[in-house]
């Protein structure tokens, strides 16, 4: 395969897109669109995916243990819907069967770190929830061309 780097947060976004979600399109954003790394002010109902860090990668083998955070924000009068959306995302992602992504990276597992957490409200009284995930991944060696590690 040719080099095609995809971040772990993008892998999660791609997985959610395959399950019917949509990435944020600035020209015509919809409720529950997915953004990466930064939550936009609009729409109110939004899902943002961040990479947090994770556990130490394997030194000898191309195996990583990234951690992901998903933040869900609802409208000011949409607490229940936002809470429910966070739960739905948790159910869709935690325990996902192993699969090979389009760029060749192997997503071995997706697990939860705790359960859905409520963060309260932002400065516009919009409710926020977070879901933390731990992943085990085997990046395709073509996507890590300078790596000292070897594929399993």
């Amino acid at each position, binding site marked *: 395969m040719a080099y095609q780097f995809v971040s772990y947060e993008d892998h999660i976004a791609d997985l959610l897109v395959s399950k019917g979600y949509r990435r944020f399109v600035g020209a015509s954003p919809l409720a529950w669109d997915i953004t990466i790394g930064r939550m936009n002010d609009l729409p109110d109902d939004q899902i943002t995916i961040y990479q947090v*860090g994770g556990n130490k990668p394997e030194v000898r083998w191309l195996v990583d243990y990234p951690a992901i*955070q998903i933040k869900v924000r609802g409208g000011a009068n949409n607490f229940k819907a936002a809470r429910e959306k966070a739960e739905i995302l948790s159910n869709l992602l935690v325990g996902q069967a192993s699969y090979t992504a389009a760029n060749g990276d192997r997503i071995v597992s997706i697990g939860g770190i705790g359960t859905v957490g409520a*963060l309260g409200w932002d400065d516009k009284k919009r409710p926020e929830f977070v879901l933390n995930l731990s992943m085990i991944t085997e990046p395709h060696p073509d996507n890590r061309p300078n790596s000292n590690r070897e594929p399993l």
Partner: protein
Amino acid sequence: MTAGISASEVSDTRSARAGMAQIIKNYRKFVHNVEEAVPTVLLMALEPTFELSLEYCPKDTGAMAASGYLEATDFRGKPRVEMGYGRGGEPEYTAKVHENMEYKHKAPTRAKWLQIALQEDGPNVQRRIVAALKV
């Protein structure tokens, strides 16, 4: 002979039972000692992790860092150690700051200070527990 069992066999059985009773007594003592030591061992093993989390904890006012705790508790009769910040919702913004990946913090402070400390130091915690229980 007693019911087909020789006197020497009866003696052997009594001796074996007495020996086993001593083994059980020693084992119970060992378990008791381990149970007594575990809270201290866990606290000792997690102390460097807690110190690392304090290093990463944002300190604009110092209130969040001051709210950090590491303590031995008891859960359903079993020893447990708890580590955290903002217990009881004080300061009330602690969870929000911990989980907000978009705030800018002055290095080395950062969001997720407790989670990162646990992830970075997790393998060392296990090693410290094993080493301490071996002594």
